[in-house]
């Protein structure tokens, strides 16, 4: 784990908790009002359980959300929080994180909030690389408005607003984020507490904007949307687990105990292909490099998933690279301005260089 106390760490300016914290410390006194069985409960528990591990002063943590089921999240965290308006959380959080580098700022959003009405703010937050951690709860449906298709719903989806099937092609949030110059992109699943927690940790460790897509089940309007990734039998074939530095293998275990399938790059056209290890051997299998300077392979990996069946869905940290962080650079500019021009003198500013005097 990265040492968060190091001088250059993303949370180096955030005060540490004085005493040991427990999950209970992060539960607010508000009754949680999601539908019974909603995947949001699992994510909330994971986040509340993860926070003590971060060890930051609770008062220096802020959760900002937009509108939608997941956006009720801040009310249930005993930290500072803002439940804002539809789609705008990344913009609001940008202002907060840019002025207050002593805060750990988290954005909670959904597929409609982040990718439809707030798409513009999401992509610009990613390209700016402000020190924000964005948790995108993707349930591939509009829940709070009772079941219309969302920008991640599969094409042809029958919903209340698409009785003959949706005509829209869905966004792949990971592909979108990579295209928006994101420096950290990961995907995890609500029900996999361990993977979810380790992904939160990786996001927290990352300097700059981190996007974590969390596949989250809406048991009322889109139940079982991610079942193929959760069911042990099916998941073996459907999930491609990415670990930095490890060969990209999945499927039922082969002779070496790793997945019987591997991801290789086809020298003919540069595309990624799935091969049977038994036939093709292990030599050409790609080793996952989350720190690769180019996002090309991460993007290609994100495209392996079938948007309809979710077969071959990569899970894990697809990209984690270092690049200039917006709020750090802005703070540096302010310091430089003082170095070059001295601390602002209001009287001198108002007078300017071009005055005349009227005597009484």
């Amino acid at each position, binding site marked *: 784990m990265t040492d968060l106390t190091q001088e250059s760490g993303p949370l180096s300016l955030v*005060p540490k908790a004085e005493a040991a914290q427990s999950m209970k410390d992060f539960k*607010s006194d*508000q009754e949680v009002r999601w539908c019974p069985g909603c995947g949001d409960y699992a994510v909330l528990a994971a986040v509340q359980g993860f926070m003590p591990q971060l060890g930051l*002063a*609770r*008062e*220096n*943590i*802020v959760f*900002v959300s937009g509108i939608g089921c997941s956006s009720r999240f*801040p*009310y249930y*965290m*005993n930290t*500072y*929080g*803002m*439940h*804002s*308006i539809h789609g*705008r959380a990344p*913009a*609001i959080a*940008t*202002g*907060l*994180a*840019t*002025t*207050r580098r*002593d*805060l750990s700022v988290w954005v909670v959003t959904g597929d409609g909030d982040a990718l439809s009405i707030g798409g*513009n*703010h999401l*992509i*610009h937050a990613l390209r700016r690389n402000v020190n924000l951690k964005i948790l995108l709860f993707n349930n591939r449906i509009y829940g709070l408005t009772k079941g219309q298709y969302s920008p991640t719903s599969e094409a042809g989806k029958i919903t209340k607003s698409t009785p003959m099937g949706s005509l829209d092609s869905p966004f792949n949030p990971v592909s979108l984020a990579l295209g928006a110059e994101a420096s950290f992109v990961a995907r995890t699943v609500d029900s996999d507490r361990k993977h979810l927690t380790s992904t939160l940790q990786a996001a927290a460790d990352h300097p700059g904007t981190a996007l974590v897509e969390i596949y989250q089940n809406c048991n009322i309007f889109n139940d079982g949307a991610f079942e193929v990734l959760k069911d042990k039998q099916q998941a073996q074939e459907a999930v491609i687990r990415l670990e930095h530095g490890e060969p990209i293998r999945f499927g039922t275990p082969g002779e070496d105990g790793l997945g019987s399938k591997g991801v290789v790059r086809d020298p003919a056209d540069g595309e990624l292909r799935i091969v049977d290890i038994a036939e093709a051997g292990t030599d050409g299998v790609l080793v996952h490099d989350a720190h690769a300077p180019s996002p090309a392979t991460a993007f290609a990996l994100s495209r392996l998933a079938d948007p309809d069946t979710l077969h071959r869905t990569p899970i894990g940290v697809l990209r984690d690279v270092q690049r200039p962080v917006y709020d750090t650079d*802005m703070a540096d*500019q*302010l310091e*430089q*301005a*003082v170095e*070059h*021009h*001295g*601390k*602002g003198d*209001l*009287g001198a*500013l*108002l*007078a*300017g260089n*071009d*005055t*005349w*005097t*009227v*005597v*009484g």
Partner: protein
Amino acid sequence: MTNQVNSPAGQRPGADESANKGTNGANGANGDVKTELSGTKEVRRLDRVIIRFAGDSGDGMQLTGDRFTSETASFGNDLSTLPNFPAEIRAPAGTLPGVSSFQLHFADHDILTPGDAPNVLVAMNPAALKANIADVPRGAEIIVNTDEFTKRAMAKVGYEASPLEDGSLDGYRVHEVPLTTLTVEALKEFDVGRKDAGRSKNMFALGLLSWMYNRPTEQTEHFLRTKFAKKPQVAQANIAAFRAGWNFGETTEDFAVSYEVAPATTAFPPGTYRNISGNLALSYGLIAASQQADLPLFLGSYPITPASDVLHELSRHKNFGVRTFQAEDEIAGIGAALGAAFGGALGVTTTSGPGVALKSETIGLAVSLELPLLIVDIQRGGPSTGLPTKTEQADLLQAMFGRNGEAPVPIVAPSTPADCFTAAIEAARIALTYRTPVFLLSDGYLANGSEPWRVPETDDLPDLRVRFAQEPNHVLADGTEVFWPYKRDPHTLARPWAVPGTPGLEHRVGGIEKQDGTGNISYDPANHDLMVRTRQAKIDGVDVPDVEVDDPDSADGETKVLVLGWGSTYGPITAAVRRLRKDGQRIAQAHLRHLNPFPGNLGAVLRRYDKVVIPEMNLGQLATLVRAKYLIDAHSYTQVNGMPFKAEQLATALKEASND
């Protein structure tokens, strides 16, 4: 020295704005004047002059006007300016839509407007002449750049015959000057091509005008040296063109007379002065507010005319701890500002009318969160994209009502360019005291216009410091101390501002209706009723000073008519009122800085008069509010042509309205 002053050409007797100084009644520049000799040339004294520089968008007319203004300000005249330019950066050369102009009114006494009609028009091409001649009264001087009056250029703007020859300019005093040729000639010793040399013709014109009006020239030369510090050759060429223009005036017979407009020594109280535009004053006001509040300033903004200059200006002052964030859109601009405010910054967003429309939902959120936030709307012609570079006051009702639900927001409006400084501080005071978004309604006329400003002493600026919440503010029945984010100050009804990082005060805010006190989500009908009324009561209770009434005849109670204005109409209305009073009319004047809430005495003031006339650059928005609130049959006088009122036109309208 003479005791007499004379109004220049084209100015009708009695058309003066001065309250204290009358003209001698002579009409035209050939009237009774005392002349002095400077070398061989006559110098005439004038009390005021209106000059308009007009040319192609690329001719540098705004720069020329700015420099003449700067020279005039440092000379000590009172002045007022009106830049007027197209929205296109470079409209097709030589066309009417491409004409850019800059009008400057300067005087030896205090003045209020950029003036109605120019005494001097500088027309750099046929388009500039055609676009402006209607505003120029006979008798005025016109300086034309004859080099540009080619058959083709004239045909382009519909001149079938040359206006310089067909008699259409009879009655004007036309100076035909081959500005381009003379400039090129003056620069022949410089290593610049003919085309580049010709570009300095605006500096030649500036030199000529500077001679005509005896302006000091050192600053302009210094300005050119600084501006082109990295290109000394260009600096030298421009300075040479500027000097050549001056010398041309002094030597050529065509310009037999130069003019002197004495400093406005009695117009200004003692102090240090500078010239300042509305957007600059507004930027300084925001920085001053941040300093006086001891809060970092955060500006979230998206470029939009005519507000972008505030973003540009604030981005230059990072050494004041100012953070400027050029957002991806208008919504993100205000969103980031609100996020910064949540963190304890003085959050500001700057925009114009179309941007306000986009920000409406976030303004509503700020109303609900009850956080301080400044929304600066530099109004322009609407609806939709409208007239981006022209002025209008048509966003008043948008600021007042343009949100879903009951979402009251205080509104402050500056009245002159320099007043933008004070108005910005006042808007910040209200936002910080009452924890509310506040609208600051400037407009394009104030933003780009300029006037002398007495530089304030920083010690005289108000103390805007706030106290962040530090500890629990409520005790539960069981004795537990808790923090209630919506427990209000009983006097201001403001809620505590508890910023993240404060231990023990962790709380959540949001746009869903909140329970009174606790701030927890509440759908309780009675609670919503209470919260809506409380938010309204908070804004209604904002402490604003009484509106002052200027009514010289108030003692005898004989004044029947009150003219009520708001925002940038202050100058033209005041000038019009002075004219009417000079004619013996009794008229009272009041001007609103606070549009929401209205000053507490406004109702009583309005009822004191038989007739209330409200001139506005919209279709009667303040009149609508006044009628609704006070049941007064206010007379609305409106203009929406993208330009400020002219004093004389307004005087006539007020007279007619008074006699109705």
